[in-house]
């Protein structure tokens, strides 16, 4: 089964390559063919990811499985080292799923330049899955960067009115972050002489002095925090989300943000434990500021997509708070929150995109309320997604938030407990504010009577292909909410390994 991770990369990559071949069919037939093609390739990738999840040895989730370790550039000791463990497996499946659902969504959705879009999204998928599979620092970095270029084009080509500026801001911001990340990775390499993440994680910082670890952690952390995004490095996010097309927003929120937080779990914390211990209080402080800040920004937001983008800042704040506790429960919370946020915010962006497509705007005052009357299914799904996002128990959003707060209640030894209690209290205020902005948004958009002036032709409610793209997300949100063990059982052993606990 070791070929599966390689195949997970090869299938979308080859799929993208095939698209370079000239096609002669008439445009309309070609568009239909392309849709089916994208669906097939991403479906095959999803099937591989599911196969991986089925074949995964859950009794040994803390160890990388299905490893492929080939020499890549011998002179630099670079290795093509792939593998999955309990931390990366959920994210790999999530990525494959969201990409597939994006293609499902695209089946009913005509776009300009369909071939380029399918190509771009498939390349994007290679980068995203590769980031989660890579077990070599430089390989990780390569995939991390590979993602940026297609996402730049997704925003810049298929985006809204202000797409160019948003795309440029996105790429410059994240590239700048990547430079810092690369410096941090090289610093680790220079001090340990290896790029193998497994070996580095096993060493738990052996061979690096405390000051080097702190420096490396700050560099790596800043690079990852841009991607996460952590307050105050988040300002590329609202613009990128607002301008990106639906598919772009979904993948951006659902997967790209996770690459930042995944880096914390995979590199920053296990490889640099002393650096993590020194910087964690700062990380926690920025995280809780982000929670409050994101929530307040949402409260006064007019644009639906922008609101959801800012809500990501708050949710990622909870994820970072979980990491900052450096406890198993906190890191579990972060990993759970990662997946839950991918599902919930993915669904939210799908819905926001559909709303924008129908109304022609995502400006809430212009939407004019009454969505439950005009589009009951859409309004109900939006209500569901918002309720999940505000962290209702029984839905996936709850466990990440709750466990992050619980982690902050009892942080790792050596961290200041009063400080973390403050973080917990501030995070608690954040949950109230989160509920506030989602409910106010629901009230503005779904409740009330639609204005008479805003009643042109009837608007189509949720269409078949949309339902097909969204129902899996709804089901998974319910599943992980009602049965959190499904995820926690995979991550807990991996987290223990990562923290060097028995």
């Amino acid at each position, binding site marked *: 089964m070791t070929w599966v991770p390689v195949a997970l990369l090869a299938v979308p990559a080859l799929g993208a390559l095939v698209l370079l071949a000239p096609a002669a069919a008439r445009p309309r037939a070609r568009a239909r063919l392309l849709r089916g093609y994208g669906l097939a390739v991403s479906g095959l990738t999803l099937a591989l990811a599911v196969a991986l999840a089925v074949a995964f040895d859950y009794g040994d989730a803390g160890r990388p499985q299905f490893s492929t370790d080939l020499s890549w550039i011998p002179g630099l000791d670079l290795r093509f080292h792939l593998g999955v463990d309990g931390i990366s497996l959920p994210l790999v499946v999530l990525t494959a799923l969201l990409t597939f659902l994006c293609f499902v969504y695209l089946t009913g959705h005509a776009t300009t330049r369909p071939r380029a879009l399918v190509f771009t999204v498939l390349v994007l998928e290679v980068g995203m899955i590769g980031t989660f599979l890579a077990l070599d620092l430089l390989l990780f970095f390569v995939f991390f960067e590979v993602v940026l270029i297609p996402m730049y084009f997704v925003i810049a080509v298929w985006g809204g009115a202000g797409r160019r500026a948003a795309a440029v801001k996105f790429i410059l911001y994240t590239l700048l972050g990547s430079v810092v990340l690369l410096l941090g990775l090289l610093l680790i390499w220079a001090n340990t002489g290896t790029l193998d993440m497994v070996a580095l994680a096993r060493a738990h910082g052996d061979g690096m002095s405390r000051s080097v670890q702190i420096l490396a952690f700050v560099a790596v952390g800043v690079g990852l925090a841009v991607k996460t995004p952590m307050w105050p490095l988040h300002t590329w996010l609202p613009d990128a989300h607002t301008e990106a097309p639906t598919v772009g927003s979904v993948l951006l929120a659902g997967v790209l943000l996770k690459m930042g937080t995944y880096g914390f779990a995979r590199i920053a914390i296990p490889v640099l434990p002393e650096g993590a211990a020194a910087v964690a209080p700062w990380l926690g402080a920025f995280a809780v500021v982000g929670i409050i800040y994101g929530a307040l920004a949402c409260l006064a937001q007019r644009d639906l997509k922008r609101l959801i983008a800012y809500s990501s800042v708050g949710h990622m704040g909870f994820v970072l708070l979980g990491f900052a506790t450096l406890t*198993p429960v906190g890191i579990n919370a972060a990993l759970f929150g990662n997946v839950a946020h991918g599902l919930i915010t993915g669904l939210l962006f799908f819905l926001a995109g559909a709303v924008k497509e129908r109304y022609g705007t995502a400006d809430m005052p212009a939407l004019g309320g009454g969505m439950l009357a005009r589009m009951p299914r859409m309004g109900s799904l939006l209500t569901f997604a918002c309720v999940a996002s505000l962290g209702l128990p029984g839905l996936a959003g709850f466990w990440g938030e709750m466990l992050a707060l619980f982690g902050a209640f009892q942080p790792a030894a050596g961290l200041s407990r009063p400080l973390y209690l403050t973080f917990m209290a501030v995070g608690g205020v954040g*949950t109230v504010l989160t509920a506030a902005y989602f409910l106010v948004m629901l009230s503005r958009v779904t*409740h009330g009577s639609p204005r008479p002036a805003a009643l042109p032709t009837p608007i189509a409610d949720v269409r078949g292909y949309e339902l097909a793209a969204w129902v899996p997300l709804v089901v998974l949100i319910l599943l992980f909410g009602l049965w959190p063990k499904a995820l926690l059982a995979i991550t807990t052993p991996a987290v223990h390994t990562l923290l060097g606990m028995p």
Partner: protein
Amino acid sequence: MIVTLAAMATLLPFLAAAAALLGCRWRPATARPTAVGSTAARPTAVDPTAVDPTAVDPTVVGPAAARTTTARTSGTGSPAGHPPDGPEAAGAVAVLARPTLDRAANARAAWIAVVPTAVSAGLAIWLAALWATGASGESAQGTLTVVDTGSLPISFGLEVTGLSVVVGLLVTLVALAVQVYSIGYLADDPRYPSYSAFISLFTSAMLLVIYAGDLLVLYAGWEVMGLCSYLLIGHWWEDRANSRAAIKAFLVTRVGDVGFLFGIFVLGLGAGSFRIADVLARYPEMPTATLIAATMLLLAGVAGKSAQVPLHTWLPDAMAGPTPISALIHAATMVAAGIFVVARLHPVFHAAGLTLDVLAVMAALGMLGAALAALAQDDLKRVLAYSTISQLAYMAAALAAGDDSAAIFHLVTHGAFKALLFLCAGAVIHAVGSNLMSDMGGLRRSMPVTFAAMTVGFAALMGLPPASGFFSKDAVLVAVGGSAGEGALSGAAAWLLYASALATVAVTGAYAMRAWLRTFFGEPPVVALPEPAPGTAHVITGHEAPLSMRLPIIVLALPAAFLGFAGLGELHWDVAVVSVGLALLGAGVVYAVWRADPLADPARLLGPLRGVCERAFHVDTAYELVFVRPVAALARVVVGADAGVVDGAVRGSAKATLRLSGLLRFTQNGNAQLYVSGLLAGVLIIAVGAVVLG
């Protein structure tokens, strides 16, 4: 066996809710740019699959338009199909017609709602019967799975105790009564299927709270109840006022719930387990400071959910929901969940003396203040809402005094008689077409059944023998009086509580008497409501409600009247005589004032305090000033700062980079020599860096 029964009782309504939600037809409303009521004839047959914009049932055209104009009483709702109608409604030119009323779908939803609830109630009765045989000892536990979180595990399990058996009976039976009642009450509402599904979901969540064996499982049910409350208060979301009331209810309780969650953390970590049985076993080993911190935090959640001072403000506004919801969620069950939790963890609270003092003060303030507010309200449902706050404070008082069985006794009797009062109020509102008592009067002749049932309810509320409230209130007063001598409470708090409890008995008598007189006696107001808009449903039925509504009223009247005899042996005649005397005193004063001028509101006896009481001591205004507006202002500041400062720095750096690159351009002059030397300099710097750092 016992746990299986509890699990089935909990799961059934959940499955019913899921089935009903999946079966919803979700028809969009369609644009109707004509005046309300152009459809003169009721369509004879409604094709359930047709989405025809013209086939609109006239009974449901009205509500959409009318309800948007019923915000005259600070967001109180009105029954579907029979809305009190404002004069503005006739002027509405373009409205959204409700989707075609699908009676078949409603009937199907009614079956999906009632049958599982009935089975649940049957299971709860079976459970109680098994329990009564005493086969299972103190408690029965069962764990489905244990979730390892990396720290304390969460056990997904149930635990049935004597307390949960009793409260489970109450919840399932009241839920059943309300489900049946709702069939008639919302007969003309096209959204009845989702409404009944949310009631089923609520029933399931409440049973989860009651039977939970783990604090976090309890919390899950606790929050889902809050969601159902939100969804049902906002059932008529066309009206923004209802939507606002729903948000307020969710947010105010959520503030408390954050404290509740932190309390669970403190308690769980202190005991080393989230299982309630473990917590109850290990609390004696925990330091008092931990216990006080935990219980104080839990108390925040209790205050939010049970609408106690200072988090009580959402409950009166929650009356915007349909009246059956007010009966079930906002009177009989969910608001009692806070009391239930304190009773469930009573030994822990008992060990934290300071918390009990705080609880006593909260209860003392809440019971009297809410009773005074109830005396000044004109909206019948708001009278009952404030009355609920006041009665919940009685339960809290009993808990503070250390007598959890008195609290639960009052919880159960109150659940019965307050649900009865609300269902009667719903019937009255159904008949009159208004929530306001100034629109009522003289209804005893036209609604004899409702009159008789509501009389029983008010008698129980006042604590008059032999109604159930008499016995339970007596038990509470005995407990509170006893704690004034000795007990867990400190002296001052105990005396304050006792004095407040006695004073509240008199005020309760007064407001109950006032509501009773103004609803059923005197003459109907000469100037009735404005004429309903043409084409809307007949707004004012003026007679008894349909059988599906009357039946639950009659059935609930029995326990409201006789349930109290369960506590007959415990009666203390001295306290009983005092409390009945006080209640009659309050009622008598109101009666005297009312006799003097039956058309005027007896609330005038409050004199200058009337306005203050009507506004419930301006707490809402204060919260608006202290919390809501600053947060809104801060949000605007953040948005401004995000664009100006945080992103401004980014854009500023971009500009600076441009300028810098303008300078750098001078180096790009095409001189290869310069390039090579630059390259070498770079390599040198890297090499030095590698040596130094390595």
